[in-house]
């Protein structure tokens, strides 16, 4: 059963205001250097390697992640409110799987 990413985008903002966006995603961020305690075999790496935030289709912020990012990746960053629209978020996993979420904002 899927664990949905959590996103926090203010519902409204004044034009020109700098708003805080937060995201939290459930993921083990398996580093690839841990061993299975019973079999001794290496557990293969599986992490979220990229995070993208777009507003009305244009990239605001993105990040390239490595295994040193903690499990259940968390981000907090800023965006300037200029017009109403939608924030789209993407988490890309090793292997290409993409998890998405989005949040709307009304800018007055």
């Amino acid at each position, binding site marked *: *059963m899927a*664990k949905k990413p*959590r996103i*926090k985008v203010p519902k409204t903002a004044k034009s020109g205001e700098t708003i805080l966006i937060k995201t*939290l995603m459930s993921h*083990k961020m398996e580093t690839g250097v841990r061993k299975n305690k019973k079999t001794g075999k290496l557990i293969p790496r599986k992490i979220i390697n990229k995070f993208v935030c777009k507003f009305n289709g244009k990239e605001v912020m993105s990040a390239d992640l490595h295994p040193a990012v*903690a*499990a*259940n990746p*968390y981000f907090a960053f800023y965006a300037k409110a200029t017009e109403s629209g939608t924030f789209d978020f993407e988490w890309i996993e090793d292997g290409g799987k993409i998890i998405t979420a989005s949040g709307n904002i009304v800018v007055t």
Partner: protein
Amino acid sequence: MNIIKNITRVTSLMGVATLILSYTTNVSHSESNPNPQGANKLKSGYHWATAPTRAMQDDDFSNPAFLWVDIGSEQWTLKDGEAGKSCASCHDGVEKMKGVATTYPKYNAEDGKLRAIQHQINNCRTQQMKAKPWKWESDNMLGMAALVKNQSKGMPINVKVTGEAQPFYNKGKKSYMLRRGGLDMSCKNCHMDYTDTRIRANILSNGLGNGFPTYRLKWQKIGSLHRRFRGCNKNVRATPFKSGSDVYTNLELFLTAHAMGMEVETPSVRN
């Protein structure tokens, strides 16, 4: 020869354990403890957590444990089992669970047993919903237990230890005081005798579990109190019991009773 080797090993381990525990440090906390103490003047693990860990717990959005509370919320309205019911079918909105967690573990006359909240959840699932029970440490059970307990966040713990609950409480107390394992230590040794002293770089808390299920930074996920008990048992080189066992449920009642009056903090963030 083997017996002598083992005795030597255990003795030296005990020696090391004594050395570690004898390193006493006075811990001063400049931040005041915002959580009211229990009736026994014992404190929540929050008191010993560092500022960034507390900040993680205090933000309901970025507290990673809420990723599991979200699972619980989803399951609350999901119909499951042959009876075609969901939790909401009988219990309405999850806010109706407010206050419930403050009384658990609780004696149930139906089967004459002491039940932790997880036992009650599975009882609902199997008897009322005619659905499969959830494993103790599964994402679903952790999520549901955290969700239900979260409804009582901020409320004082108020478990019953008299009457039918008394024999279970007594058994839990006995467990707590019993020395066990290769290190020959009891829960009491760390969590009563040596509270506020260091064990390696950690400081020993009262170990009361008022915030469980908790997001443990070490586990990098949420986990149950019984999982923590298993860890403690293994750490003193004792054979752990099963999660959901009578031993651990009785122990949970003893701990919770000791935290009487302390606030429910579920889901907390701990080391």
